[in-house]
C-alpha cells in the first residue's frame, strides 16, 4: 500500500527539479542568476502545481466516488418530484420501522438491567389433571423448600405486589408497593443508591424507597434514612433508597417492605405467588425444572397439608421461563411483534414503489446509458452511478426518518396501553439510529440494485431505435414488484380486519353487568379509630353509602370487594352435600358485597334476594352464588336454600345458606367465561370472622364522569385522612380492558391503510408507464379498428392479472402468518374465510380502480396524434 505523500515532500521535489534545471542551464553557460530565473520560468507557476498536487492527493481515494455522488445529486435535482416522492415514501416507512424497533428493542429484546440477566428465571408450576389452571404461581412453601434444597440456584425470592397506604406527617396516599423477601436484592444483584439492604434481624419493620418516592415526597433528602412512617397500619423504618432504574416488580412500584417468610406461617396449598430465581452459571432451564420437579415431591411430607394438596404435588411439574417472558405478557408481546412486522411490510412495499420509480426512470435513460456505454463507460461505473442515486435517496430518507421517529414516537407511546414495562425507555437512541442506518443500506440496495443492473446492460439497439419502441415489452421486474406489494398489503389488510372483527365480537360480549352511568372508587379508612371489626366496619360503609345516595343525580350505591375489570377475586374450596369423601371440596372464587350492587350493576337476580342492610352489620351466614357456581356445586339442582361449608379469612369451617342466585360476571377478561363466584355479606358469621380489605364503591348516576370531586368531599367528611383512589367510570374500565386490542387494531389499521395506498400507487404507476410506452402501439391498434372498450379492457386485464397473482400469494402468506397473532384474536379464527374473502375482494377492487385510470388514458389515445409523435 502506498502511503500518502505529504505536501512538503512534493515541494521538496519541485525545488530539487528547479535546482537540477538551473544547474543544467548554468552548464550551458548562463549566469547563476539567469539560470535560476530561467529554471523557474520553465517550470511554470509553482504554487499552481502545488495546489493541483494538494487536491489530487487529498481526494484521490474518494474522487471517483464523490464525482458519482455529485452526478447523482445533480441528476436527482433535475427531477425534484421524483426525489421528493422517493424520499418521503421511504422516510415514512423507515421512520415507522425505526420507531417500532425502538419500542420492541426496549420492551422485549433488551435484557433487564441486571448483571447476567439471562440467568434470571421465573418459576411456576403446572399440574395436568388437577383443577388448577394450566400454569399457576407457587406458594411460600415452594420458595422455602427450593431455597434450601436446590443445588442449581444462585438465589431465589418471592414477593407480593399491591397498593397500600403510605403516611407521613404531611401527606397520606395509597401507593403501589411490594413485599419481597430479602433475597430479592442479592438474587437480582442490586444495591441501594443510599442506605443499606434489609438483613434478617430487621424482620418486617423496614422499607426501601424508590427513587421516585424519594424525590416526590422527600425532596431527595438523605436525612430520610432512619425515619419511621406508617405503611398500611404499622410504623416502618426507612433504611435505603433504590436506584431510579430499579422497577421491580412493576414500573410504578414505589416502596419495598421487607417481608421475610416465617416457617410457622406457611400454609401449604396457597398457590398463586411469583418465584424469581437466578441460575448458577452453566445451568440450563431444563435442568433446573427437572431438579425442582423432583424436590417438590418432598413438600407434603415436610409441610403436611390436605390430601388434595398431596394429589396436586403428585402431578406437579416445575416450569422455568426466562424472567422477561413472564414480565411481558403474551398479548403485549404479540401486539408489538405484529406491529413491527406490519411496519416492516410497509417498508418493503415502499421499497418496491421506489424501486419501481427508479426502474421507470432508468427506462427513460436507457438511451443516455447506451451512449455512455458506447463511448467507453464501464458497466461498473454505470452501476455505481445508479447505486449512488439510490444511496442518496435512502440516506436523505434515513435522516428524515430519524426525525419522524423522534417526533412521532412520543405520540405513539402516549397512545400505547399503560403499564407495558420499560416502554417509556423507547426513544431515538444509539440502537435505533444504528437500526435506521442499517435500513438505509438495505433500502438503497433494494431500491437501486435491480434498476442499476438493468440500466447498465443496455442494448445498443436502443440507439438505433431512436429511443422509442413501438411495442411494449413485458417488464417482469416491475410486475414482480407489484405482485409483492399486493401480497404484502393484503396480508396487512387481513390482519387488521381480523382485529376489527375481534373487537366487534368483544364489544358485543355480555359481561353480565352494565358499564354505563357507573362510577367506582375506593378509599382506605385504615386509620386508627375507624375500626375494622365486622359490624363497626359494616356500619361505616352503610353510612358512607347513605351520604353518597344523597348526592344529586345519584340513583343507587353499592359495594363490592373486587370490582370487575379492575381487580381479581380470591379463590377458596367449598364443600357441599355433593362433596364426597375426604375431598377438600370444589374450587370457587369469592368476594363481599353490600348495598344496591347487583341492581345498579345490572347483574340479574336469577333467584332469591340480595343482601339486606342488616346483613352488613349483623353476624349472619348468608351467601349469594353466581349461576355457574350454582351449576358447579349443585348440578341439576335448585341452589336456593342449599348449604355450603367454607373457611373464609379468619373464620373456622362454617356452614352458609344460599339466599340468592345471580348471573355470572366476567371478572377481568371478556374473552373468558363468567366466574364461579360466591358473594358474602360485609359481616360474617361472627363479629371478627374475616379481615377486610378496602372494597370498591359503585355509584349509579347519569353524571358518572363528574362525580369525582363531590365523592372526594364526602369521603373527607367521614374520614379526613383516608386516601381516595382507583377512581374510574366503568366505561373507562371497559375501554381499558380492551386497550391492548384497540390500540393494536387502530395502529395496524393505519398501517395497512398506508400499505393499501402505496400498493395501489405502485400498480397505478406501473400501468401508467406501460400505457405511456405503448401509446404508439395502442394508436396503431385503434387506427386498425380497436374500440376504446377493447383497449381499456386490455389494460385493466393486464393489471388484474398481476393483482390476482399478488392476491393469491397474499392469501397463502396470510394463512401462514395470521395464527402468529392468535393471542390477540377473539371470536374469529386466524383463517376466517369471510375476512379473507372480503379483504381479497377489496384488494382486487382497489387494483381494478388503480388500473382503470391508466386504461382510460390509453383508450383516449388519438391514433393520428400517436402515430405522428415519432
Amino acid at each position, binding site marked *: 500500500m*502506498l502511503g500518502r*505523500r505529504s505536501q512538503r*515532500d*512534493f515541494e*521538496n*521535489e*519541485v525545488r*530539487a*527539479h528547479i*535546482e*537540477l*534545471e538551473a*544547474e*543544467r542551464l548554468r552548464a550551458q553557460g548562463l549566469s547563476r542568476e539567469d539560470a535560476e530565473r530561467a529554471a523557474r520560468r*520553465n*517550470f*511554470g*507557476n509553482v504554487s*499552481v*502545481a502545488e495546489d*493541483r*498536487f494538494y487536491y*489530487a*492527493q487529498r481526494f*484521490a481515494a474518494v474522487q471517483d466516488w464523490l464525482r458519482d455522488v455529485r452526478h447523482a445529486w445533480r441528476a436527482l435535482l433535475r427531477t425534484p418530484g421524483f426525489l421528493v416522492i422517493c424520499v418521503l415514501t421511504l422516510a415514512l416507512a423507515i421512520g415507522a420501522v425505526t420507531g417500532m424497533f425502538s419500542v420492541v428493542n426496549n420492551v422485549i429484546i433488551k435484557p433487564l438491567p441486571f448483571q447476567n440477566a439471562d440467568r434470571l428465571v421465573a418459576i411456576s408450576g403446572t399440574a395436568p389433571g388437577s383443577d388448577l389452571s394450566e400454569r399457576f404461581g407457587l406458594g411460600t412453601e415452594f420458595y422455602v423448600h427450593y431455597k434450601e434444597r436446590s443445588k442449581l440456584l444462585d438465589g431465589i425470592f418471592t414477593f407480593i405486589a399491591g397498593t397500600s397506604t403510605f403516611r407521613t406527617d404531611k401527606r397520606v396516599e395509597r401507593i403501589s408497593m411490594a413485599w419481597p423477601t430479602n433475597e430479592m436484592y442479592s438474587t437480582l444483584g442490586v444495591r441501594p443508591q443510599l442506605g443499606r439492604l434489609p438483613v434478617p434481624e430487621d424482620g418486617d419493620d423496614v422499607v426501601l424507597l424508590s427513587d421516585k418516592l424519594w424525590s416526590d415526597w422527600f425532596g431527595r433528602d438523605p436525612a430520610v434514612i432512619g425515619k419511621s412512617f406508617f405503611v398500611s397500619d404499622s410504623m416502618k423504618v426507612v433504611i435505603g433508597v433504590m436506584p431510579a432504574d430499579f422497577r421491580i416488580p412493576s414500573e410504578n412500584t414505589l416502596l419495598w417492605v421487607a417481608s421475610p417468610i416465617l416457617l410457622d406461617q406457611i400454609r401449604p396449598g396457597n398457590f398463586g405467588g411469583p418465584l424469581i430465581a437466578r441460575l448458577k452459571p452453566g445451568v440450563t432451564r431444563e435442568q433446573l425444572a427437572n431438579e425442582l420437579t423432583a424436590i417438590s415431591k418432598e413438600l407434603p411430607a415436610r409441610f403436611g397439608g390436605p390430601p388434595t394438596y398431596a394429589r396436586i404435588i403428585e402431578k406437579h411439574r416445575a416450569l422455568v421461563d426466562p424472567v422477561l417472558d413472564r414480565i411481558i405478557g403474551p398479548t403485549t408481546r404479540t401486539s408489538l411483534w405484529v406491529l413491527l412486522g406490519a411496519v416492516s411490510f410497509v417498508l418493503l412495499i415502499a421499497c418496491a414503489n421506489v424501486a419501481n420509480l427508479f426502474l421507470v426512470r432508468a427506462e427513460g435513460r436507457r438511451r443516455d446509458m447506451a451512449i455512455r456505454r458506447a463511448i467507453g463507460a464501464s458497466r461498473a461505473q454505470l452501476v455505481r452511478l445508479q447505486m449512488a442515486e439510490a444511496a442518496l435517496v435512502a440516506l436523505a430518507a434515513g435522516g428524515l426518518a430519524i426525525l419522524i421517529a423522534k417526533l412521532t414516537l412520543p405520540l405513539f407511546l402516549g397512545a400505547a396501553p399503560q403499564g407495558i414495562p420499560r416502554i417509556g425507555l423507547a426513544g431515538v437512541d444509539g440502537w435505533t439510529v444504528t437500526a435506521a442506518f442499517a435500513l438505509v443500506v438495505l433500502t438503497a440496495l433494494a431500491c437501486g440494485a435491480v434498476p442499476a443492473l438493468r440500466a447498465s446492460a443496455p442494448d445498443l439497439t436502443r440507439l438505433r431505435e431512436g429511443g422509442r419502441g413501438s411495442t411494449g415489452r413485458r417488464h417482469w421486474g416491475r410486475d414482480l414488484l407489484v405482485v409483492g406489494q399486493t401480497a404484502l398489503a393484503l396480508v396487512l389488510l387481513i390482519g387488521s380486519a381480523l382485529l376489527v372483527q375481534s373487537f366487534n365480537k368483544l364489544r358485543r360480549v355480555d359481561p353480565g353487568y352494565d358499564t354505563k352511568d357507573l362510577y367506582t372508587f375506593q378509599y382506605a379508612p385504615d386509620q386508627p379509630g375507624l375500626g375494622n371489626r365486622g359490624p363497626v366496619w359494616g356500619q361505616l360503609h352503610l353510612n358512607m353509602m347513605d351520604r353518597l345516595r344523597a348526592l344529586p343525580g345519584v340513583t343507587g350505591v353499592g359495594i363490592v370487594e373486587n370490582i370487575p375489570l379492575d381487580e381479581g377475586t380470591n379463590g377458596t374450596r367449598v364443600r357441599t352435600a355433593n362433596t364426597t369423601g375426604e375431598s377438600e371440596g370444589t374450587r370457587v372464587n369469592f368476594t363481599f358485597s353490600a348495598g344496591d350492587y347487583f341492581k345498579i350493576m345490572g347483574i340479574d337476580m336469577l333467584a332469591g334476594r340480595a343482601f339486606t342492610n342488616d346483613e352488613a352489620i349483623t353476624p349472619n351466614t348468608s351467601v349469594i352464588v353466581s349461576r355457574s357456581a350454582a351449576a358447579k356445586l349443585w348440578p341439576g339442582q335448585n341452589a336456593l336454600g342449599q348449604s355450603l361449608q367454607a373457611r373464609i379469612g379468619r373464620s373456622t369451617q362454617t356452614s352458609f345458606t344460599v339466599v340468592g342466585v345471580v348471573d355470572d360476571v366476567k371478572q377481568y377478561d371478556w374473552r373468558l367465561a363468567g366466574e364461579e363466584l360466591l358473594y358474602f355479606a360485609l359481616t360474617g358469621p361472627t363479629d371478627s370472622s374475616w379481615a377486610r380489605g378496602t372494597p370498591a364503591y359503585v355509584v349509579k348516576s347519569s353524571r358518572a364522569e363528574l362525580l369525582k370531586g363531590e365523592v372526594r368531599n364526602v369521603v373527607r367528611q367521614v374520614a379526613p385522612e383516608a386516601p381516595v383512589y382507583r377512581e374510574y367510570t366503568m366505561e373507562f374500565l371497559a375501554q381499558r380492558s380492551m386497550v391492548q386490542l384497540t390500540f393494536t387494531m387502530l395502529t395496524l389499521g393505519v398501517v395497512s391503510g398506508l400499505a393499501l395506498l402505496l400498493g395501489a400507487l405502485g400498480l397505478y404507476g406501473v400501468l401508467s408507464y406501460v400505457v405511456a410506452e405503448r401509446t404508439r402501439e395502442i394508436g396503431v391498434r385503434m387506427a386498425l379498428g380497436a374500440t376504446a372498450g377493447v383497449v381499456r379492457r386490455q389494460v385493466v386485464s393486464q393489471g388484474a392479472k398481476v393483482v390476482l397473482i399478488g392476491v393469491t400469494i397474499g392469501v397463502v402468506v396470510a394463512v401462514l402468518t395470521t395464527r402468529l397473532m392468535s393471542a390477540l384474536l377473539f371470536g374469529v379464527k386466524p383463517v376466517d374465510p369471510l375476512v379473507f374473502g372480503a379483504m381479497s375482494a377489496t384488494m382486487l377492487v382497489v387494483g381494478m380502480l388503480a388500473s382503470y385510470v391508466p386504461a382510460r388514458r390509453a383508450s383516449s389515445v388519438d391514433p393520428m396524434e400517436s402515430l405522428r409523435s415519432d
Partner: protein
Amino acid sequence: MPTRTEATPRDALLQGTLDLLILRILALGSHHGHGIAMAILTRSGDTLLVDHGSLYPALQRLEQRRWIKGAWGTSENNRRARFYSLTATGHRQLTVETGRWNRLVESIARVMDMGPTPENA
C-alpha cells in the same frame, strides 16, 4: 453524421501520450522528474519539449494508479531528488499502451495515405 467535437480528443491524446512517454522512459531505468523531461527531449531529437508544470501531475497520476513508484535518492551530481521507477503493473500497462499506440498510428497512417491531399485542406 454528427460533427466531431474539436477540443477533447486532442487534450486526451496529449495527456495519454505524456503518460506513455513517461512509462517508456522509465522502462529504461529509474529517473527523477527532471531527468524524465530531459530524456524525452533528447530522445525525441530535441523536438518534444515537456512542460515541466504538467509533468508532475502526470507523475502523481501514474503513481496513484500504482504504475510507477517514487523514492528519494541522490542524483549523479549529488543532489537529492525523487526517483521514479516502473512497477510490475506499470510494465504490463506499458505493453498495453504501446500496442494501442501502434494501432492508432497505423490507423491514422492508413487514413492519411488514402490519396492526394485536397487542395484546401
